[in-house]
């Protein structure tokens, strides 16, 4: 067993890098920007997280996966706190995260809190000749687009 007081916050952040979003598994919780703080108080580790959307069904699983990852590293006294304010924004997504999204086939958010009618870059062929199919895609955080050049449909991670 590891006592929290003997572990650095840097080490905890490294562990969190290995915890992925269950619905977009190429992104870690750090890439998403949903981990707001890591606190060590005597023998307790507290992880402060914030939901992407109010109804995001992945949040419970993300909490559990964070807990499991810390348990695997020998920590046992773990507290996970959810805060709503300030509200999560895609501005908190890391640049590395946005690159991973593109490679995975999901267009990354690029305009502040907007759903552009067209012009989102196709993650397959990089054309900007694209159009919005639906404001809501396979999850609440994505919209559905199609590329008019390569004709592939794709998800766009909405600016939020």
């Amino acid at each position, binding site marked *: 067993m590891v006592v929290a007081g003997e572990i650095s916050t840097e080490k905890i952040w490294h562990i969190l890098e290995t915890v992925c979003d269950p619905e977009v598994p190429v992104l870690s919780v750090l890439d998403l920007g949903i981990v707001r703080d890591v606190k060590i108080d005597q023998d307790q580790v507290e992880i402060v997280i914030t939901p992407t959307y109010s*109804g995001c069904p992945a949040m419970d699983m993300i909490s559990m996966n964070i807990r499991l990852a810390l348990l695997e590293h020998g920590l046992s006294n773990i507290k996970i706190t959810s805060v709503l304010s300030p509200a999560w924004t895609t501005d908190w997504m890391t640049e590395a995260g946005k690159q991973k999204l593109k490679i995975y086939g999901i267009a990354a958010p690029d305009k502040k809190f907007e759903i552009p009618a067209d012009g989102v870059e196709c993650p397959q062929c990089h054309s900007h000749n694209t159009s919005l199919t639906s404001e*809501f895609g396979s999850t609440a955080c994505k919209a559905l687009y199609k590329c008019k050049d390569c004709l592939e449909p794709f998800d766009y991670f909405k600016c939020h």
Partner: protein
Amino acid sequence: MEALIKYTLHLADNALIMGHRLSEWTGHGPVLEQDIAISNVALDYIGQARNFYQHAATQINGSTNQKFNQSTNQLIHQSTEDTLAYLRDAIDYKNHLLVELPNGDWGQSVLKICCFSAYQFLLYNQLMNATDLQIAAIAEKSLKEATYHLRWSSEWVIRLGDGTDESHQRMRTAMDEIWAFTGELCQPPSYDPGFVNYALLQQQWNEKIAAILSEATLAIPADPWMQSGGMEGRHTEDLGYILAEMQFLQRAYPNSIW
């Protein structure tokens, strides 16, 4: 304190019943993309409801006001988001009548979302500055979602209202069905804790909806009779059917989990 608990439940009940009703569309949408869209909207509402119920439960559990607990019967024991959703009867529900109405056709559903999300968008803009910090935080969080809902639903109202003869006629029918239930949206409840300027809310709502309906070529009824009472627990019979379906399992098999 009692007013704040009731107000929190009012916000929670609106979101839960709106979300539960809309979730009936899941698997029945006119096309796959819109089926997914309306299900996502419903999910946002359920998420907002959970946040408000958790906040209400925290307040109730921390309250020593026994009178409140007696009057609501089920709440004597430790409250949770689940007991508040599943173990209160229709008379304790404080949602607007609008959100419990049957879905009707697609036009009625998108008009209902449009009227409600315009209200929610403007309400949350004010609640962001509430002196109750948790209500302010939930409003700040939910405002972004209400913005999507309003944009998506208003586009549908305009498309169908200013569409074919058939779609225009259906939207006129939708207006006839729904309009009488929009009157209480911007009225303060009797337990108003004073976070919101309701006169301003009503004025802003009128302007926003008038602009959308004008673009949709739909007329607003002149001086209509408006229904009210939902916030005070006087509901249409439709709410009973929602609760019967939603609460059956917890009533029949208390404390069952899955």
